[in-house]
């Protein structure tokens, strides 16, 4: 008897593709995503960090330092950019502090390195009197500034060892007394030799074997003023005035994920209406299928807007989420996100044959999208490959928009990329849903 019942269970499993996918496919997808993000797929390296680099010093020491940074394999250094608002064909100009700050604010790079005037004079002094390199940081990506801080120390040691040696001797003579002429000649000779060998290449060679993720990399070198080979001062250009800034990330991430769930659930009422015969009756009234779908879409959109508003208001009241100053951008993003989510829900509803099928398929798609798109963990933690895949998800674009509003204080006009993408997604979803719904129309 037990065997018979097990047999029935196995037959059901064999014939139910949704259960098969939930049982075998979804766990593997999730395992792969988490392993890809947190395990780096067995590699010890991280993806290259994009940085903007400004040299305000322009001394030989700073130039050598810049050259070494450019050869650093763990960094993708950018020293030029088009002026703000310039045409795409306009030539790129060397970066200055203001433009580099703009790149960080716009989310083009998570960190900008500014080598201040006077840096070369005190380079390698190993005390706190030297000029500190400034890291203009987007604190929405806290990992990037930590990584760059460590790499600055490493590069300083390898870029100009002769200068480091000279500075070291200067410190020695200051506190231990002057060298003898013979010692000085020997040091000069050695200094010239290492200057000749001071290969920025060595930095590149090093980084091929390991970047900031290597065990030898400084784990927490950053701070307001570091007493390392170079001093580093981290300046938060985005989140410094915000109260409890990370909350907006979680609010948006969780809200978008649950918005998708509620949209697919609300879309499922369409299947219930098909099964109950209500849709058939609706189609004999003055409401055609287009009207029915439009009404469903509007309702689910409004429901989604309400859901996100409740979530963010809760965040504001309980977790000091900075909602009120960002209301216009918040409403634009919420409306666009809810509209696209409603379209997505209708696609799923019109695609599935039963409520049960809808439940399974929506769980698989929404959880996968949410994991890849940044609803479960920030995308800056993800390897570049997974980030690129994430760009095909609904969540990534919605979260980018909320991030622009809450982190970058983006003006409404600056939300156009997200508005465009979400608007296009909405149009595509509604078109697909309309086409799929034809099967319920006249036979």
């Amino acid at each position, binding site marked *: 008897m037990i065997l018979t019942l097990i047999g029935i269970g196995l037959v059901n499993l064999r014939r139910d593709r949704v259960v098969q996918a939930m049982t075998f496919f979804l766990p593997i997808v999730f395992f792969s995503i988490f392993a890809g993000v947190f395990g780096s797929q067995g590699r010890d390296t991280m993806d290259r960090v994009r940085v903007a680099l400004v040299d305000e010093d322009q001394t030989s020491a700073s130039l050598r330092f810049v050259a070494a940074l450019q050869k650093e394999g763990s960094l993708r250094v950018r020293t030029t950019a088009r002026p703000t608002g310039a045409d795409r064909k306009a030539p790129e100009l060397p970066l200055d502090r203001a433009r580099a700050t703009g790149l960080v604010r716009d989310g083009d790079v998570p960190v900008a390195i500014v080598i201040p005037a006077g840096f070369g004079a005190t380079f390698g002094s190993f005390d706190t009197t030297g000029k500190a390199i400034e890291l203009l940081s987007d604190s929405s990506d806290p990992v990037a500034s930590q990584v760059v801080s460590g790499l600055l120390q490493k590069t300083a040691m390898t870029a100009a060892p002769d200068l480091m040696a000279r500075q070291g001797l200067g410190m020695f003579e200051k506190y231990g007394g002057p060298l003898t002429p013979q010692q000085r000649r020997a040091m000069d000779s050695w200094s010239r030799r290492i200057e000749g060998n001071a290969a920025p290449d060595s930095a590149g060679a090093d980084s091929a074997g390991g970047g900031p993720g290597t065990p030898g990399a400084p784990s927490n070198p950053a701070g307001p003023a570091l007493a390392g080979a170079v001093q580093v001062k981290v300046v938060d250009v985005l989140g410094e005035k915000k109260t409890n800034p990370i909350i907006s990330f979680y609010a948006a991430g969780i809200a978008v994920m649950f918005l998708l769930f509620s949209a697919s659930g609300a879309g499922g009422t369409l299947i219930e209406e098909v099964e*109950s*015969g*209500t849709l*058939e*009756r*609706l*189609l*004999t*009234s*003055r*409401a*055609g299928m287009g009207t029915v779908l439009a009404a469903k879409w509007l309702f689910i959109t409004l429901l989604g807007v309400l859901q996100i508003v409740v979530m963010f208001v809760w965040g504001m009241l309980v977790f000091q989420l900075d909602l009120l100053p960002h209301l216009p951008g918040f409403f634009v993003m919420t409306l666009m996100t809810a509209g696209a989510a409603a379209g997505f829900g209708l696609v799923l509803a019109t695609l599935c044959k039963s409520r049960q099928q809808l439940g399974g398929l929506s769980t698989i798609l929404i959880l996968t999208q949410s994991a890849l798109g940044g609803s479960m963990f920030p995308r800056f933690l993800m390897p570049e490959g997974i980030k690129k895949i994430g760009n095909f998800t609904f969540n990534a674009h919605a979260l980018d928009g909320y991030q622009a509003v809450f982190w970058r204080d983006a003006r409404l006009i600056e939300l156009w990329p997200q508005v465009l993408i979400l608007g296009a997604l909405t149009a595509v979803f509604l078109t697909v849903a309309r086409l799929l719904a034809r099967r319920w*129309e*006249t*036979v």
Partner: protein
Amino acid sequence: MDVLKVTEARKSFGPTRALDGASLELRQGEMLALLGPNGAGKTTLVRAIAGRARLDGGAIELFGRVLDVSSGKAAGREGLGVVPQDIALYPLLTARENLMSWGRLHGVAPHDLAPRVERALGWTALADRANEPVKRFSGGMKRRLNIACGILHEPRVVLLDEPTVGVDPQSRERIYDMLAELRDAGVSVLLTTHQLEEAEARCQRIVIIDHGKVISSGTLNELVERTIGAGRRVTLTLDRPPALALPGLEPGPGGTALVGLVRDVATELPTLLGEVREAGCRVLDVEVRSPSLHAVFIHLTGRDLRE
């Protein structure tokens, strides 16, 4: 006057011919039963009239106007009310809310809506439950409300697909009373049903459909005349079995009954009774029955309605 006329309706689903030249007429103020075994094409025909099934051929006229049967659009059917077989209501809405919603969806003018809803609640005997969610209603109450939602826009022709399926006898009676009220108000009613007795008792005319074709139509008497004839079935219950066989009578159930068919009851029945007396038997009971629709149906289709 015909308010609805279907001529040579044809519709195939792949190799299956659901409608194979079906034709029927619905007259002003009549209740017409559409009978047929499962899969005969009843629902397809109703859906085609309602604009929910695209015909491959044939024509449908509503109030003398030829409808577009190939586009599958419900346009031009404003005077038509459709009551589906399913309980197509919103279960979490109250009876009143359902009526209001369906009234709006059928284009009832806002100033007419409230009085029509109140009338419908009275008509369905649901006025005292008007503000309860429909999910708490019994099957019969839901059926009544289902019908009311389909006629709130006061159509002149109403199509009902199995309006009494799954309800108890009292509710069925109540539903047929409602339909009779509609008919008395001049509304033409076309209903599909499996309840032969109800079709026989309540409908003026009956259309029998099988394999997508109308195989007979008319009043019950006309159907009987055309099929098994106008004879009456006579059953005589005797005090004992007759010793000899009597002409025109066959042994019936129980051994003491004799059964025969007479064309003219007034002249043939006294003759039969005389023959029984002459055979030395006493007649305890006499039953004269007209042939039923059930017999006609089996005669025409060769199978029971529920097969």
